[in-house]
């Protein structure tokens, strides 16, 4: 007859260990026969589209989702093939990815970091997504990218413009096709100097969060290098809706340019308020008062209506581009949905295809193999001209568009006109200037 020695300390220790084991997410603990997280074993592969379906960027999220659905259709051999016809790499054959039919699940980021991480985690753990992509916010992108790094899946960022995404917060499993704040500043400054002169006094209103800071810094650095003086830079709360009390002091500051480092609803409201206050009709320092919006989005420009006319900004892509890739994408998207795609839709579609192409070239879904295939990958035909996925920081380098609000739009989509296509050489920077470490690739399992 054996005797069991049950002690309080022993029970507590055993319980704690068992509890921790049960509580820990299986994806971070499971040891299976799979070589990497969510290795597809059947005839299909699942991608996770994590986009804002509710919240302030829901319209951008809806456009991203349309683009992903179009990409899945094209990858599976449906539709007209879209950008697969113009893409310089010919690895994709329209038979899914590595012969597996592409399926997808969607998550709602709500443009909140915690909600975005929860939906990404759910898609990885419950739905078996082998790659996560999408989003319309840098805060979300950085949070989800870190989660994907831990989980051992690839993250193909959607619309995220902060330098940090591929700067101080970069990760080996994360890749960004969209441009960033530094590139906006570098592309915009010469155009601003040409149009408004080098003797200007700028007043910055900056959204009080990560993206706002990096954008302000980028535009300040670039314009000050051209001879502009920054008279003030004021942080505005992200929740602000009426900017009148921030606009009014601009009048007495001696500034003759207002730079609105705002995006989304912030941009729509601050620009509308600035125009209402008649800033653009004023003469200050014997010069016309000017307004600059560093990051433009067509969907946001629509919200600001006629107030965007004549205002300079930058954008990652625009449907009016006449290269073969852009024309193919606009035709494909426009035929399916009845309106031209936004830049968010474009970058998400391209990211989906770039991932699929990298898997085909690598011959594996293993995130480390995919990452190697994406590193220093040079491609063309995707609507931005020759593009490099730089290996040092996983940032795409391509031409940047400087745009201006169109004076006489012919339709509700015709809001921006391209002023200049800034060559990639002018917006390229040393990867080390923003710090951060990629770390090593994590395949998960």
């Amino acid at each position, binding site marked *: 007859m054996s005797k069991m020695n049950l002690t309080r300390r022993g029970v507590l220790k055993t319980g704690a260990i068992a509890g921790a084991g049960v509580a820990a997410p299986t994806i971070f603990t499971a040891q299976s026969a799979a070589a990497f997280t969510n290795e597809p074993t059947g005839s299909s592969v699942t991608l996770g589209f994590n986009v804002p379906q509710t*919240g302030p960027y829901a319209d951008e999220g809806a456009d991203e989702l349309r683009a992903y659905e179009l990409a899945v259709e094209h990858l599976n051999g449906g539709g007209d093939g879209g950008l697969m016809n113009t893409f310089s790499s010919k690895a994709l054959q329209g038979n899914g990815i590595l012969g597996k039919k592409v399926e997808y699940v969607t998550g709602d980021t709500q443009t909140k970091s915690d909600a975005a991480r929860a939906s990404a985690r759910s898609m990885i753990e419950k739905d078996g997504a082998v790659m996560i992509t999408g989003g319309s916010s840098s805060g979300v992108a950085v949070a989800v990218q870190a989660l994907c790094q831990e989980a051992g899946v690839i993250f193909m960022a959607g619309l995220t413009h902060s330098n940090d995404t591929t700067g101080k917060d970069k990760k080996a499993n994360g890749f960004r096709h969209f441009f960033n704040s530094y590139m906006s500043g570098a592309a915009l400054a010469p155009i601003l100097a040409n149009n408004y002169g080098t003797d200007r006094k700028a007043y910055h209103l900056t959204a009080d969060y990560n993206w706002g800071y990096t954008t302000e810094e980028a535009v300040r650095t670039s314009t000050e290098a051209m001879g502009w003086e920054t008279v003030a830079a004021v942080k505005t709360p992200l929740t602000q809706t009426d900017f009148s009390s921030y606009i009014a002091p601009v009048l007495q500051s001696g500034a003759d340019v207002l730079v609105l480092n705002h995006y989304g609803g912030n941009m729509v409201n601050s620009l*509308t308020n600035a125009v209402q206050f008649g800033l653009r009709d004023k003469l200050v320092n014997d010069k016309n008062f000017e307004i600059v919006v560093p990051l433009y989005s067509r969907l946001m420009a629509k919200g600001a209506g006629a107030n965007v006319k004549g205002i300079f900004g930058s954008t990652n892509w625009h449907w009016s581009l006449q290269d073969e890739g852009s024309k193919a994408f606009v035709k494909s998207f426009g035929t399916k949905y009845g309106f031209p795609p936004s830049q968010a839709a474009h970058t998400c579609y391209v990211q989906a295809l770039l991932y699929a192409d990298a898997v085909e070239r690598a011959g594996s879904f293993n995130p480390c193999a995919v990452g190697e295939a994406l590193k220093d990958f040079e491609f063309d035909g995707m609507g931005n001209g020759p593009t490099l996925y730089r290996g040092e920081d996983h940032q795409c380098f391509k031409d940047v568009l400087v745009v201006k609000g169109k004076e006489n739009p012919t339709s509700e989509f015709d809001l921006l006109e391209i002023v200049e296509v800034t060559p990639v050489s002018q917006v390229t920077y040393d990867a080390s200037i923003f710090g951060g470490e990629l770390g090593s690739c994590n395949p998960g399992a």
Partner: protein
Amino acid sequence: MEAIILQILNGLDKGSAYALIALGLTLIFGTLGVVNFAHGALFMIGAFCAVTLSRIISTSHTIIDETQTDFLGNPLKVEVPYVMDWFGEATGAAIIDWAVPLSILFAIPVMIAIGVIMERGLIKHFYKRPHADQILVTFGLAIVLQEIIKYYYGANPIPTPAPSAFVGSFDFGTMLGFEANQIIYPYWRIIYFAFAAIIIGAVFAFLQFTTFGMVVRAGMADRETVQLLGINIDRRFTLMFGIAAAVAGLAGVMYTPINSPNYHMGMDFLVLSFVVVVVGGMGSLPGAVAAGFLLGILESFASMREVLNVLPGLNQIIIYLVAIIILLTRPRGLMGRKGVMEE
């Protein structure tokens, strides 16, 4: 000095919106005793009345312009509003241009109807329930209403400009003897302030100088006695709910040219408006109006660069800070009466 005058002007239009919403909240609280967290949603629905009427007026038929192409290279489909066919191009364009002021006429019956339906359909079932239940159900209703608006109108702001006659700004500086361009203020914001003053005056006059208003005031003071006199006070209170909804709705209609409306705009004003009601004194109509303007002006001053340089972030907390101070020194608020919410 110029900066101070400018911030007072800024505070007046912001205070106008606070005051109008708080006035409606106080009317509902004073008559029905309901804490209505869906009141911000009524402000938002009012704004979308302007969007809706603007779209109705702009309803168009399509003609093909063979001389131009669309984004796919097909002949351009040009939308021609029916009002231009019916009334001629110039008159039709003028009607579209004046969509926001015209929306006032559209919003009044719509908002009264929404208010009455809301009160009869949902709120009346919560009269005898604790305030916490009322807050939960009305907050839930607010979320439902804003999600419905988002479903039909999208999440992005929708530009709803003022008539072109009111675009631009007025130079107060020149009028007051200051340098030109130093104190300028948009025409539409001046109109918003004047409009708010008229609405507030009309509500007070309605309550003070009409028999209906007298009965309502009597009901607010002593509901049971009024009922014992054979007056159906419930019906009048239901109509007051409708009027309060209309006041919030009109505030929303006229606000659309100031900030492009979106589904979330009601929530942005709701919490601040509740603070306004509490600071003004629960159930006090003059208190709500006074506190609305007071807090609007204080918020504007706190947003001055000179202030923020010394106390960063003050503009985010000033209203709550003042609320704490006032409630510590005057627990019933600025004009609160004894006995309200004190049972």
